[in-house]
């Protein structure tokens, strides 16, 4: 029996919105619990406050100016670090990168996680002794590092640890003073646009390099697995080789050099959970290291790197997935022949090592020539190859900055939290739609952050008094 369209549309978006929501919820809970209203949290001296350390007595102009300077410096440092990482990646210092990133993740989970846990233990008066706590913490951090970087673990565990890392870094960022936080967010959003879309942007160059080499981008990236369980009827006989060939990490249609954004992040799907284990080990690199942020020397803050490298949203989905179908319908094409359904399309691009169309023909399904035509029609010169089943990916830095915004909103009141949450999710949805329409790597920060900031200030200044006044008079609408 045919399934309804309503049951499958939108699955990928929800699978990205859910972990973002969970991360934001955890940060709001932490902030709400550990930051009692009215208390003055001593700001931590960090790289982000090298230039200006905010004191409550400064005038508004001074705070704005200081915050602005802090933001600029922060963005500059982040940009330099991204270039350094790009250089390391370019010269193939993979071992160095891997060790560094594993160490950073361990420090985030152990140090920041430990600090947060200690605060929680103090708050709830949990009876636990130091030795147990130490053992648990070290185990927790080690499993986290292994789950995220080195081993193939159940996907829920990896995703869970990524969300926890994002939450810890975001919670740490909320300890910055208020004006610095806002200017930082806005500067990062502006930088993100530049880094991803401008030709000399470091993230764009990194993406291009990773694509030409067909390696994982060295960053912490949250990947939402495909939603629908793929029941492949089995590959057609002529393409039986496809299951043994290593699927490409990135697939192109067309020549590599100028088709920077002809990318698909996708792997063959029914074997997808295991197939990328090799590639995972060799080149899955990520970085987050909160400890640098606590140094008083000008060592670069590592945590935002994850945000930068990951602050672009790249995706590809299967033919039945929302984004591909969205983009093709928006482009107004004729419906594809009904023979092409989701069971055969992924085979088009599975297992191809080189990019020639001939290889695709070798895969043997007779849908291919037509698919190629359709795909070529659907492509502009920067087209996405959207025929491969894959998953939406969102960089961990996006998690961090969304949660920072919501955490800072939580320090005022819960009403701002709800408003900012809706704004961020709306911005994320808009970004995903743009992703489907423009079919290129999109920066995930700008729309959400700008909407979030606008909604925060509107809510705080206008809506809060309005609603509270109505409610205390018991007048509703």
């Amino acid at each position, binding site marked *: 029996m*045919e399934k309804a*369209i*309503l049951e*499958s549309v939108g699955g990928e978006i929800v699978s990205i919105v859910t972990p973002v929501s969970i991360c934001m919820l955890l940060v709001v809970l932490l902030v709400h619990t550990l930051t009692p209203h009215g208390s003055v949290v001593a700001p931590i001296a960090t790289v982000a406050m090298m230039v200006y350390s905010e004191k409550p007595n400064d005038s508004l102009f001074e705070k704005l100016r200081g915050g602005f300077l802090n933001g600029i410096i922060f963005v500059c440092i982040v940009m330099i670090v991204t270039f350094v990482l790009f250089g390391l990646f370019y010269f193939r210092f993979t071992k160095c990168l891997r060790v560094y990133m594993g160490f950073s993740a361990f420090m985030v989970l152990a140090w920041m996680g430990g600090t947060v846990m200690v605060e929680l233990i103090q708050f709830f008066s949990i009876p636990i002794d130091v030795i147990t706590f130490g053992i648990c913490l070290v185990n927790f951090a080690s499993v986290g590092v292994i789950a995220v970087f080195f081993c193939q673990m159940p996907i829920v565990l990896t995703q869970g640890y990524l969300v926890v890392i994002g939450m810890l870094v975001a919670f740490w960022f909320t300890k910055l003073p208020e004006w610095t936080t806002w200017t930082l967010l806005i500067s990062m959003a502006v930088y993100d646009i530049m880094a991803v879309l401008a030709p000399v942007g470091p993230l764009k160059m990194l993406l291009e390099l990773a694509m030409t080499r067909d390696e994982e981008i060295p960053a912490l990236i949250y990947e939402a697995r495909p939603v629908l369980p793929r029941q492949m009827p089995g590959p057609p006989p002529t393409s039986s080789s496809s299951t043994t060939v290593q699927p490409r990490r990135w697939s192109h249609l067309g020549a590599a050099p100028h088709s920077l954004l002809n990318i698909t992040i996708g792997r063959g799907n029914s074997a997808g959970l295991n197939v990328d284990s090799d590639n995972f080990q060799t080149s899955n690199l990520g970085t987050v290291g909160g400890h640098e942020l606590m140094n008083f020397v000008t060592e670069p803050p590592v945590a935002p790197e994850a945000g930068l490298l990951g602050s672009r949203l790249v995706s590809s989905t299967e033919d039945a997935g929302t984004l591909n179908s969205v983009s093709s319908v928006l482009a107004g094409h004729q419906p594809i022949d009904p023979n092409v359904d989701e069971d055969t399309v992924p085979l088009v691009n599975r297992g191809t090592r080189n990019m020639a169309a001939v290889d695709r023909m070798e895969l043997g399904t007779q849908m291919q020539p037509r698919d190629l035509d359709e795909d070529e029609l659907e492509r502009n010169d920067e087209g996405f190859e959207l025929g491969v089943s894959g998953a939406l990916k969102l960089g961990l830095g996006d998690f961090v900055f969304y949660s920072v915004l919501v955490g800072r909103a939580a320090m005022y009141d819960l009403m701002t939290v709800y408003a900012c949450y809706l704004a961020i999710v709306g911005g994320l949805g808009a970004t995903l739609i743009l992703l489907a329409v423009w079919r290129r790597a999109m920066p995930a920060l700008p729309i959400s952050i700008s909407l979030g900031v606008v909604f925060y200030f*509107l809510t705080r200044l206008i809506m809060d008094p309005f*609603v509270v006044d109505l409610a205390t008079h*018991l007048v509703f*609408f």
Partner: protein
Amino acid sequence: MTGAGGIGYALIALGPAFSLFVTVIASKPFLILTVLGSAMMWLVSLIASGLLWRAFLPGAVWVFLPLLITVVAIQEAVRIYYWHLYLKIEDFLNKLATKVSKQQLVATDKIQIAIASGLGHGIAHSVFFCLSLLTPAFGPATYYVDSCVHMPLFLVAAFTALGFLLLHTFSMVIAFNALAGDKRSHQLFVPVMHLCAALLTLVNLLPGGCIAGVPLTLMCAVVTMAVAGKIVWDKTGSGSGDLNSLHRVHSASRL
């Protein structure tokens, strides 16, 4: 009034929404996105109303009357705009369904989308008018408003939010049906009912008025629910002809 009280108030305001969400909406990702989208539209209309009236509040009591009328007018205008947006999305979904060779939208689908949209409005109302006020309710004390010494503020807010949640949810169902079928009476019913419910909360301004105000709001919600129920029953009940046209059919006998 401690954690139990706070959770209790939250459940009063949002319990039915939660159960509606879990049973109808959670299994379909598109409906989850619809809820979020319509919640955001309601929030935008609320901010617009706030921008308009912020200068007058806190002010004299008579301000509330024109305030309510304009705010309800804004929300109904947003509802009409949302309907036009929905038509485009429905068209898009049908094209998508053809493309991936699935069935087009049937009546139950459309009703579910309407419920999801209404629920988005209702949840946004409950969250902003009740949940965001509940933070003090988790503490050790409670708060009574001058004009209502019978019930704490939180209880009144919770019940009223419940009423409005149901009202918003089901008036969206009525509105979708009326605008699709172009039925004048139902098209007028929705804004009139909304305005009535809003104006009836003005009763709460009178001393001791909340004794009457809260049940009146809940009654408006029940009336809306009844009308919506009748519409849905007519559409899918046994009296409406060929059942096959409304349910999922086998691909061989696709309509």
